[in-house]
């Protein structure tokens, strides 16, 4: 995929997500997203756990690690890497840019 068919989508305002918190956002044409604020840095991932049909935003977030409320599987929201079983498939992460106080992600057209 080349740069021409990638688009920037606004996900939410930075002020919508407090420090250490997560927010679920649904945008048309994309799976539900999770926006995380880790010490003032914003990260966006898929919101649905890769192990089961659970919303990661309903789990605990601690030092950049989100824990699924179903079976305590955990991911590093900065990289999508699996931190704890039973998850084994990494979480999809999105490239984030901050545009005038909004969290935006780059997605395929």
């Amino acid at each position, binding site marked *: 995929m080349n740069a021409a068919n990638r688009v920037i989508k606004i996900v939410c305002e930075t002020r919508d997500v407090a420090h250490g918190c997560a927010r679920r956002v649904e945008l048309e044409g994309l799976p539900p997203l999770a926006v995380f604020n880790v010490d003032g840095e914003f990260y966006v991932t898929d919101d649905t756990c*890769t*192990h*089961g*049909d659970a919303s990661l935003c309903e789990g605990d977030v601690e030092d950049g*690690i989100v824990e699924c409320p*179903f*079976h*305590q*599987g*955990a991911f590093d929201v900065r990289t999508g890497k699996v*931190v*704890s*079983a*039973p998850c*084994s*498939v*990494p979480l*999809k992460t999105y490239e984030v840019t901050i545009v005038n106080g909004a969290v935006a992600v780059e997605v395929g057209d």
Partner: protein
Amino acid sequence: MNNITIEQTGMKFQCDGGDTILSAGLRSGLGLPHECTVGHCGMCKFELVEGKVEVLWQDAPGLSERDRSKGRMLACQCRPVEDSRIKIRLDEACRLVRPPRKTEAVLSGMTDITHDIREFRFQSDTEASFIAGQFALLKLPGVIGPRAYSMANLANKAGEWHFQVRRVMGGSGSNVLFDRLRLGDRVELDGPYGLAYLRTDAERDVVCMAGGSGLAPMLSIARGMAASGMMPERNLFFFYGARQPWDVCGEDYLKSLPGFGATISYHPSVSFPDEGWNGRTGFVHEALQDVLPGNFADYEYYMAGPPLMIRASVELLTGHHKVPLGQIHFDSFF
């Protein structure tokens, strides 16, 4: 005998001397979360609120450093030494319709399938009760901890349990089966376990993906489809991923099922081919793209095999092809 109380619901169950918390809970009909039952998958994490347990495998890979720092334990690796209260999230989907039972089984037959996979047939006095795709735990002489092996056959009143085991270098379980166990020897068999069983009510064509000794549960799924009357309405696409040509197996068993060549098709692929191999090459998930007609989300998937095969397949199906996770069935042994 110790009592276990579940903190959130107040439910109680009894755990006898030899049983782990997980086995005892499943035996009593509760939906304790689990997949592998042998310390790997990390599904059965719990917190001990009160009481005392003995931990069977301290370094079980199912727990991460993070889990340990939070004081979590695995229900499949803990035996209570006194009445205990635990915090665990029950899940109706994990309740076993046929609760596992312990029985004695005698090794009654063996057949080589490939150079390193052998079928071991056991006979129990009680009927063999399980759903296609499930597994049982074998307690083998001289091996620490039970070993999980999937049944290749179907439930039967005669008490026959067929396992197909791959010899693993340095694997104490498979080496005892291959080298030490003789016809007529007895083992303890505990089962059935597992959630990757055949859903006969799913109105979709079926894809089975097997690699290595993942052949057994996929064969059971195929046999279950034939026996349950799902065919000829449902098609079965059976994929087998082998490392080298001499590892390819399974077709002979499928050929004996009605509908082979019509509703049942077999698609082997080899990742390290030699000059003699003129079939499909590459990994099993890559073969899906060549073979499956139509939309990937229109199939029900069953898989068993090496962790890499399963991870790559799940990523391909859920990521690129948007197959709902609920249509993909496997028990994670990693």
